[in-house]
């Protein structure tokens, strides 16, 4: 594992109770950790810094995709060749980061940690939405992925530079559309089973808003936005 050129990016919005643990565990794996504080009003930035992370603070909330792109740009500007994105809510086990990096070693430019490998339980509506999204991704890319909305991912160059240049800010954009963008650049995508911790903080998105996110994604897909963004 080439740790020199790898940066772990943790987008965090009001996650003061868990971000410290995440940073400690990332550091224990032996990798540098960048926390992108997405306009938090709590002590997220202080806790992350105290735990040993480099911290970038967004002056306003930009959404996960906005925070991630800031992280990608930091990585590219500082000479990192690979990044791993890890959620700040302890849903993703930092100990599994080397597994994602191994998938990059095997030739993938995008490695996605699948939570379903470990009996990930979700509600009925959410499960159908995730199946629909997995089906759409399979239709567009021909790649069978179980967990297209997983935010536990590793990205390597040259895809990293594409993402640093243009990356969707909207919800589902940073996950589903990012996969389609990767496919449009010709990048190999692979899936890695990861153990899954239950979500400890924060609430799942209400279904009405989730429906709005789905409608937005469908418009973006019909318009062919991801392949255009990957150019």
């Amino acid at each position, binding site marked *: 594992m080439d740790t020199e050129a790898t940066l772990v990016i943790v987008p965090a919005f009001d996650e003061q109770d868990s971000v410290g643990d995440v940073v400690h565990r990332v550091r224990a794996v032996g990798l540098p950790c960048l926390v992108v504080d997405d306009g938090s*009003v709590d002590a997220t930035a202080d806790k992350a810094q105290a735990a040993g992370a480099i911290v970038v*603070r967004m*002056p*306003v909330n930009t959404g996960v995709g906005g925070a991630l792109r800031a992280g990608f740009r930091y990585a590219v500007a500082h000479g990192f060749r690979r990044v791993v994105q890890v959620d700040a809510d302890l849903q993703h086990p930092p100990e599994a980061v080397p597994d994602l990096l191994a998938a990059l070693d095997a030739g993938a430019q995008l490695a996605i940690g699948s939570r379903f490998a470990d009996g990930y339980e979700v509600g009925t509506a959410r499960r159908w939405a995730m199946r629909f999204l997995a089906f759409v991704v399979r239709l567009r890319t021909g790649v069978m992925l179980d967990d297209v909305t997983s935010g536990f991912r590793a990205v390597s160059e040259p895809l990293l530079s594409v993402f640093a240049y243009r990356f969707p800010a*909207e919800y589902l954009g940073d996950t589903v559309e990012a996969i389609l963008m990767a496919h449009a650049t010709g990048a190999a995508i692979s899936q890695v089973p990861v153990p899954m911790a239950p979500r400890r903080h924060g609430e799942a998105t209400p279904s009405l808003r989730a429906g709005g996110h789905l*409608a*937005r*994604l469908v*418009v*973006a897909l*019909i*318009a*062919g*936005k991801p392949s*255009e*963004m990957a150019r």
Partner: protein
Amino acid sequence: MTAAAQALVVVIALGALIVVLWMVRRGLLKERFALIWLAVGAGMVVLVLVRPLLDRLSEAIGIRSGTTTLFLLAILVILGILLQLSVSLTALEERLRDLAEAIALDRVRSPDGEPGSPIEDTDDR
């Protein structure tokens, strides 16, 4: 409404659909706004093509001519979109101000010309 007029409306709506989707593709229009315009276009086509719907609606609100109902609805929808845009613009101005202040506070200079230490932003939201 004559068949020719109906055809004209459908052609305009289809043209608008293509333009809106192209703008989304090129990143000129956010999907959020595209959804509004697509809904407006679809609603217009339905009202123009399904004449009984428009007539029944006119009768229900006491308007004699279906065309007048169509104009009334169109004006209300346009006013609604304008209001929504004003709200978006207000939020955008507030975010822009936050951004400008954050950048300014990172560029503090002390009286002797040396760069000062950045001030912690106050988070008074």
